[in-house]
């Protein structure tokens, strides 16, 4: 459903990336998430911090909002393109594109 709503240009890019086996996070400008156990989550290519508390971290990305829930969450590092979240991560949830924007 989400794919159907994407603009034509984006769908073309996705097909090209698939055909030439190119990394889609680079070609399509998608966020890249690396979850290490339940200890650390590294999000690359984010679009800003929406909300931060000890139990929840909200991030804005190109495909919608990302909510990370857990206990004793700390933002270990945040730069223009990278966020590292430490703590006990219990849930990673995507919101719809454009939600809360």
């Amino acid at each position: 459903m989400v794919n159907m709503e994407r603009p034509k240009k984006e769908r073309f890019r996705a097909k090209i990336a698939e055909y030439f086996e190119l990394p889609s996070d680079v070609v399509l400008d998608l966020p890249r998430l690396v979850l290490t156990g339940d200890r650390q989550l590294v999000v690359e290519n984010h679009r800003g911090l929406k909300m931060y508390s000890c139990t929840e971290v909200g991030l804005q990305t190109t495909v919608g909002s990302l909510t990370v829930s857990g206990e004793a969450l700390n933002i270990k590092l945040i730069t223009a393109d990278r966020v590292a979240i430490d703590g006990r991560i219990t849930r990673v949830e995507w919101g719809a594109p454009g939600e809360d924007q």
Partner: protein
Amino acid sequence: MIAQRLSAFFQGYLVVMIKGARSEELLNRGIAGGVAFWDIKKKAPGTILCALQADQYPKLRPFFFRTGTKGKILRKKGWPFFWRRVWRKKGWLLGMALFLSLLLTLSSFIWFVEVTGVEQLDPGLIRSQLAVLGLKPGVPRRVILPQRDWLIRELRIRLPEVVWLTVRFKGVIAEVAVAEKKLPPSVDAGPGNLVAAKDGLITEVLLIEGTPVVRVGDMVSRGDLLILGETTRVHLDGSVATKKVKAAGEVRARVWYEITVDEPLTIMEPVVRGGPKIVYRLRLGNRLFTLFSRGTAAPEGFVRQDRAVKPILPGRNSLSLVEIIKDTYQPVEWTTVQVAPETALLKARHKCEMRIGTVLPAGVQPEKIQEVWTRQAEVLHYRLIIETKENIAVPD
């Protein structure tokens, strides 16, 4: 991340507290402006602690106003701030520099000469020889280090009792490891007699040197003279010449050994009465404190069945100084039990047989074994008499 932390340390960084409802927006604006934040912690609603490079803090100033937040520098960390603090305390810096230079200077000398591996030799003698060769406390390392091989060679020449030695330099310590020559024990070649080492009945005399003073069938006691260290010669002219020699030979004799064991015919045996009692104690060094007990454990009528020891805070000390001790006692009633004489005899015989090896000299086998037992009141007296044939002649 490590590279970023190292860079922050060397450039200096700040720990900042940001207060305000829109603190996340401030972070976003900062990030958009090229500021990197780390160690972000939410202390309270609307209060965030974070770290950032010191030179990037001015970039945040306009955003504080726009987002309605307030920033407060809590700590200044990293090398530039540390150096600035140190530079203000010139006396401390001078003291540290002096201390380091003194440490470096003093560590360039040998201050201790340790001698290891000596058994007979006097370590003081080795130290004095080393001092003559130039290795003594206070000598600079740069002087003595090139001379190490020469030093070992010279010391070996000066100490003929040493079979091997080496010199190792460990910081301010010069360690001399020595292996001494093991010389065989000196043989006494002077005249001497052979005497009896123990009581016995002589069965054989084998003479090599000296004059025998006993014959086969003689009964001798410990210390009696067996072979005299003297030879007599009668010359053709009738004169008698005596000469002192070292007596040599063997005098074999029958020797008796006796092993005695008293085995009781009446013994006290505990009979279990009731359930176990547990006592917890705390040991502090040599002192023992009773913490609590499950059931009353009177000292009499109880037998300790088990002891469990749990060391507390052992640390690096291998001797546990603080321990919790759990003792389990079993209430018992002592009753008199009669032992059958046959059982007591078997026990006594077994005990004696176990002791034969400790009584007989090495290499001597028993020729005859005789056992005698008597019963007196409630005790069985058991005697094991062992007869051997052995050489009893020893130098006096």
